[in-house]
């Protein structure tokens, strides 16, 4: 059985968790500055946060919201990170392109290049929360409850995973759309047929997606 425990949404204006506003972006502020301020206000001192690209920053902030505040940051192999993204790392890809466009001003940056892979955000979340389990990253045209549910179903069938940080994480320039869920996976307590479970999951996801916060 797959149960949604908590969720976090980020769009270009608001960060919300479980239906409550966490932060509103001031007019004219860049995503980068907004994320930086949210991190500073959170009281968590994590110097590597400032080195991340916007995709990783967004995923990192959302993961902070969906995991319990009193989380035991012990090594864990029963937790997976499963993310879907549309643009993947394109936002950072374009920055890397700028550093190499002109051979007379050619300074490719390792800091930028390392983020030109969509799965780095999974790695950042894994490092922060000491997740040694499965990290998966897919590129898809749009968020699909069916595709996400299928992946969670596989994890349930493989029987190694009890928790998943999963969802949609997409950033391009000033556009931002994140929906991150913490789901609990219980292989032993599956009672409903998948279709029944799926339709419940889809209903939940739709409600979360279309709720204001």
């Amino acid at each position, binding site marked *: 059985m797959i149960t949604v425990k908590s969720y976090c949404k980020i769009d270009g204006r608001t960060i919300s968790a479980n239906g409550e506003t966490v932060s509103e972006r001031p007019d004219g502020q860049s995503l980068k500055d907004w994320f930086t301020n949210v991190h500073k206000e959170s009281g968590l001192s994590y110097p590597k946060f400032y080195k991340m690209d916007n995709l990783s920053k967004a995923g990192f902030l959302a993961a902070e919201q969906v995991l319990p505040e009193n989380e035991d940051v012990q090594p864990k192999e029963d937790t997976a990170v499963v993310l879907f993204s549309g643009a993947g790392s394109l936002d950072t890809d374009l920055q890397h392109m700028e550093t190499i466009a002109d051979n007379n001003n050619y*300074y490719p940056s390792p800091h930028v290049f390392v983020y030109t892979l969509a799965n780095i955000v999974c790695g950042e979340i894994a490092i922060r929360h000491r997740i040694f389990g499965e990290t998966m990253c897919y590129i898809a045209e749009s968020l699909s409850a069916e595709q996400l549910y299928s992946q969670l179903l596989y994890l349930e069938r493989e029987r190694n995973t009890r928790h998943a940080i999963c969802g949609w994480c997409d950033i391009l320039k000033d556009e931002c759309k994140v929906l991150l869920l913490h789901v609990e996976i219980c292989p032993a307590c599956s009672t409903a047929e998948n279709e029944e479970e799926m339709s419940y999951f889809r209903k939940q996801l739709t409600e979360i997606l279309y709720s204001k916060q």
Partner: protein
Amino acid sequence: MEELIQTLKEQIIEALNLEDMNPDEIDANAPLFGEGLGLDSIDALELIVLLEKNYGIKLANAAEGKKIFQSVAVMADYISKNRTK
């Protein structure tokens, strides 16, 4: 040299995104790696880019950087002797 050290501190903070730091907090003689600023292998590579971009110094490999990136003072000394811009 004092001026170069100050400039270098600012450049390091910017290049390595050390958001929480200001130049006065960096001890010019303290080790950059290990305990010091908590820098990692990507930071070391980024410092190589910094040397090339701002001072026209080309390092052949990362190992060479180890000696130069001991501290801001050592870096400044190396830059003043080897800079081409």
